[in-house]
C-alpha cells in the first residue's frame, strides 16, 4: 500500500508485542451497530493514473485567456526562485512552531514577514497572517468591537462586496449592526461616512484602492473616527503600497489586505493570505499567531510565538479568536517574494501596473461610447468603464475571442449593470491591451 511501509512480517511482530492476534482486534471497541453501512470508495490508482486524471480535469478549465479580471485578486509575476524555495520540505512539511528550538526557520521567517508588512503599510505591528483578506477584515472588525465594547460598524459600499458578504455572515450571530454607506459614483462618500460615525460606532471600514479601483485619502475620516472613539480600519493592496499613501500615514488603527498578489497563485480562491497590521496599542486584541524575538540562556538570539495568552489553546472560550492557523506557508511565500523583488522591484511592479491600467483606460476611452464611472477620481491598477450596453454582453462576446475583459459590476451593484471593472498588471503588454480595445469596439 502506498505510504504505508509495514511488511506482513513487521505487522506480525508488532501485533505480538501488543498481544493481540489481528489488527481487527484493535477495533473491537467499535460495536457492529456502529460499523459503516457502506464505504464505496473506488479502488486506489497509481500515481501516474491520478496525475493523468487531474491533468485532464485541469485541461478542461480555460486559463489560456488574455485576462483583465481583478477585483482584488491579481495575476502578478512570481519569480522562479520563490517556487524553488517554497518547495523545501523543511518548510512545507513542518508543523506550527510550538517547539521553537526546532522551528527557528519558520519563526524567523514569520518575524521577518511581520516586519516587512508592517513597513509596507507603515503600521507598528502585524500578526503572522490569517486565512485571507475577507477574514482579515472580519477579524479587524472584531478587534474594534472588543476594544471599544460598541456594536455598530460603519462600512463603505465601495469596500469589496466579496468581503462585505463574509462580514455579514459572521456578524449576524453576534448582534452587531452593520451600516453600509452607499458609494458616490465609484468614490467613497466621505461626508456620509463621517456623518455615520457616532458615539456607538466601533469601527469605520474603508478600502484603498476601493473596489472600483479609486484611490483616496481617508486621513480626515480617520481623524473624525478617533475623535468619536471609533477604530479606523482600512483594507489595502500590498503591491501598490510602495507607491500609495499608507494606512499609517492616514492615521488608520488597523490595516488589512489580501496577500495573494505577493507571489501566491490565483488557485481558484485559495489558499490565500490575510494580512493584518495594527497600532501597538491594539496588539493584544489581535487574533492569530505572533512571533517575537528573544534570547536563550547563553544569550543567543531566537524567535518564539509570543503573546499566546490571546489564543485558543491557552484561553479556550475566552480567546480573541478561534483561529489556529496563520497560513504560514503563504506568509513565507509573500516574504520570499518581497525579498526577491525588493523595494525597487515591487515599486516597478506597482508603477507598471498603474501605467498599463492607465493605458488601457485611455485606449477604451478613445472609443466614443465608453466613459469612466468617474473621470475626476484617480485610480491605480484597476478602473471602472461604463458602456452603453450591459457589460455582461461585452464580456460574453470577448470570451469567444479568448479575452476576459473584466468583471461586470451589476452582480453586486444594482444600477451599474453597464459598468465593467478592468485591471492590468505588469504582465500585460501594450499589444494585448490594444487587442482588448479593438475587440471591445467590435463588440459594441
Amino acid at each position, binding site marked *: 500500500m502506498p505510504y504505508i511501509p509495514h511488511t506482513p512480517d513487521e505487522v506480525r511482530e508488532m501485533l505480538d508485542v501488543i498481544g493481540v492476534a489481528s489488527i481487527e482486534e484493535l477495533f473491537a471497541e467499535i460495536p457492529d451497530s456502529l460499523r459503516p453501512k457502506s464505504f*464505496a470508495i473506488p479502488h486506489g490508482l497509481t500515481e501516474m493514473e491520478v496525475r493523468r486524471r487531474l491533468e485532464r480535469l485541469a485541461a478542461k478549465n480555460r486559463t489560456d485567456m488574455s485576462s483583465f479580471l481583478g477585483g482584488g485578486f491579481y495575476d502578478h509575476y512570481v519569480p522562479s526562485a520563490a517556487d524553488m524555495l517554497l518547495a523545501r520540505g523543511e518548510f512545507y512539511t513542518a508543523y506550527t512552531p510550538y517547539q521553537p528550538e526546532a522551528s527557528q526557520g519558520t519563526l524567523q521567517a514569520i518575524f521577518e514577514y511581520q516586519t516587512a508588512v508592517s513597513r509596507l503599510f507603515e503600521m507598528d505591528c502585524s500578526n503572522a497572517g490569517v486565512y485571507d483578506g475577507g477574514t482579515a477584515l472580519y477579524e479587524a472588525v472584531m478587534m474594534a468591537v472588543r476594544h471599544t465594547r460598541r456594536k455598530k460598524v460603519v462600512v463603505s459600499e465601495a469596500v469589496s462586496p466579496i468581503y462585505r458578504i463574509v462580514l455579514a455572515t459572521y456578524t449576524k450571530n453576534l448582534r452587531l449592526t452593520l451600516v453600509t454607506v452607499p458609494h458616490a459614483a465609484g468614490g467613497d462618500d466621505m461626508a456620509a461616512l463621517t456623518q455615520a460615525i457616532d458615539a456607538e460606532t466601533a469601527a469605520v471600514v474603508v478600502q484603498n484602492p476601493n473596489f472600483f479601483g479609486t484611490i483616496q*485619502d481617508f486621513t480626515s475620516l480617520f481623524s473624525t473616527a478617533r475623535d468619536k472613539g471609533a477604530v479606523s480600519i482600512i483594507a489595502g493592496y500590498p503591491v501598490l503600497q510602495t507607491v500609495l499613501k499608507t494606512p499609517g500615514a492616514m492615521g488608520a488603527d488597523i490595516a488589512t489586505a489580501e496577500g495573494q498578489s505577493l507571489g501566491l497563485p490565483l488557485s481558484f480562491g485559495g489558499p490565500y493570505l490575510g494580512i493584518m497590521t495594527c497600532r501597538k496599542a491594539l496588539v493584544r486584541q489581535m487574533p492569530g499567531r505572533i512571533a517575537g524575538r528573544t534570547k536563550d540562556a547563553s544569550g543567543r538570539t531566537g524567535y518564539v510565538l509570543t503573546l499566546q495568552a490571546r489564543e485558543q489553546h491557552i484561553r479556550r*472560550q475566552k480567546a480573541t479568536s478561534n*483561529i489556529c492557523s496563520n497560513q504560514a*506557508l503563504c506568509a513565507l511565500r509573500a516574504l520570499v517574494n518581497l525579498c526577491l523583488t525588493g523595494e*525597487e522591484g515591487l515599486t516597478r511592479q506597482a508603477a507598471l501596473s498603474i501605467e498599463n491600467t492607465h493605458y488601457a483606460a485611455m485606449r477604451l476611452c478613445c472609443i466614443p461610447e465608453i466613459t469612466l464611472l468617474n473621470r475626476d477620481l484617480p485610480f491605480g491598477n484597476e478602473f471602472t468603464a461604463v458602456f452603453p450596453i450591459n457589460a455582461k454582453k461585452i464580456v460574453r462576446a470577448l*470570451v469567444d475571442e479568448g479575452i476576459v475583459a473584466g468583471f461586470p459590476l451589476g452582480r453586486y451593484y444594482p444600477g451599474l449593470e453597464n459598468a465593467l471593472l478592468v485591471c492590468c498588471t505588469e504582465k500585460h503588454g501594450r499589444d494585448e491591451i490594444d487587442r482588448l480595445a479593438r475587440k471591445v469596439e467590435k463588440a459594441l
Partner: protein
Amino acid sequence: MSTVFAKSVPGREGVWPEKPRTEPVDFIPEGLLRARGANLPSLSELDVVRHFTRLSSKNYGVDSNFYPLGSCTMKYNPKFTEEVAALPGFARLHPLAPQLPGGGDMVPGALEVMYETEQLLCEITGMSAFTLHPMAGAHGELTGALMMAAYHADKGHAKTKIVCPDSAHGTNPASAAIAGYEVVSIASKDGIIDPEALAAVLDDQVAGVMMTVPNTLGLFERHLPRIVELCRAADALLYYDGANLNAILGKLRVGDAGFDVVHLNLHKTFGTPHGGGGPGSGPVGVSERLIPYLPVSRVAKDEAGRFSLRYDYPKSIGYVAPFYGNFGVMLKAYAYILRLGGEGLTRVSENAVLAANYLRKRLDDLLEVPYNRICMHEFVSSAERQGKNGVHALDIAKALLDRGYHAPTIYFPLIVKEAIMIEPTETESKDTLDGFVTDLREILALAETNPAAITAAPVTLPVGRLDETHAARAMEITDDLG
C-alpha cells in the same frame, strides 16, 4: 542568524521587472502617494536563496524528522500531489471566473474536482452533504456552530449553550464562543464522556454537543450510542471534530453513528502538508436535516452532467469564505484519496492504530500511561513519575529534539498531568518506531541517573530554550519595535 533586513544593501538588484516608462505621479496626485520609502530589503537572488535555504535548515519537518505529534497527524505528504495542485489549469484559475456570464464554462474541471471531493468525503464519513469552504479546522468548527444556530433558530427555538468535554481541543470552546454560545464543560470519567454527566447538563438551552472520536486521549467513546440517544431527546445536535479521523477510516462512519455536523482537517487525515501552520482546509459535512443551512455557494451537477455554482438557498448561513475554500489544498486531498482508494484508506487507519498501540506497549513500563488499554491512533502518557527527579514533560520533549525527533504534544489534553501525547501515524516504519523507543529509553534512563542532562536540553539545536517571558514583555515583534 541575522535578519533578511540586516543583509540588505541599497541598490543591489533582485528579480526586477523592466523599468516603467512613467511614474505613478504622472497619473495620481502627489498627496495620495507614499511620502517615505518602505525600507524593504534590497538583495540579489542568491542572497535571498541562501538566506531562506539556511532558515529552512533550522526547521524540523516530516521530510527530515519523525514527528510523533499527538492530535495533529503529521503523516508523510506525498510529493506528486504538490505537482497536481500546481498544474496551470488549476493554479491560474481566477476565483471570479465562475461569476462571469457563462463563467461556469470556464471552470468545469475545477467544479468537477470540488463536486467529486464532496462526494468522496460524504462516502468516507457517511454524511449527506459537504461544504469545502472552511479554510481550516477551526474555521470549520465555526461554520458548523453557525449552522447549528441557524437550525435551532429556524425551528423557532434559538438556544444558548454548547457542551464540550474537558478533553476537547481549545478550538472547540473558542469556536462555540465566537458563534455566540455559552460553553459548558463536562468532566470525563475513565477517560471518556460520562453519559450521566452529559445528561445532567442537557437542558433545553443546549444547541449542540461537540465530540472528538476517538477523543484526545486516543480512546474510543464507548458510550456513543447512549450519547446520541440523549442528544436526540434533547434536540441537541451532535458535532464531530474530525481531528482524529485518521483512526477510523473504513471502521466507523460518523454519519451512520448519528452525528449531525462534522469538520475534517484535510491536512491531518488526507496527507496535505501543514506548511508550518497553514494553509489547512476544514470541510464540513452535515446530516440531511442541516443541508438547508450550508454556506453558499454550492456545487451542483445537472442531469446532463454539467457542473455549476448555485446560490439560491434561502436558509443558508451565507458566506463563510469569499470563494470556495482552499482549493489548492483540496486538490491535494482529492489526489490522495484517489491514490489510496477505499482499501488504502482503511489500511491507513489500521496501520495508524497498529503503530500507536505498538509504541504504547513498548513504552508503558517507562512512562505512566493513565488509560493503558487498547488505544486508537494515539495515546497519552504522563511524565509524572519523572517529576520526582525534577524532569518534566517539557524536558523530555526538548531531549527528543536533541536526538532528531520532533517532540510529541505535551500538556494536552489538560486532564492528564505532565501529558505526553504520541501519535506515530501509519507512514512511519517499524525501524523508525524502534529507534524512537531506544532513544526515549535512553532519555528516561538519564532522567533517573543524570536529570541535569535532560533539563539542559536542547543542546544540539541552533538555540537553547528561549526566554518566552522576556519575549512577551519586550514585545520585539518586528525589526523596528522593542
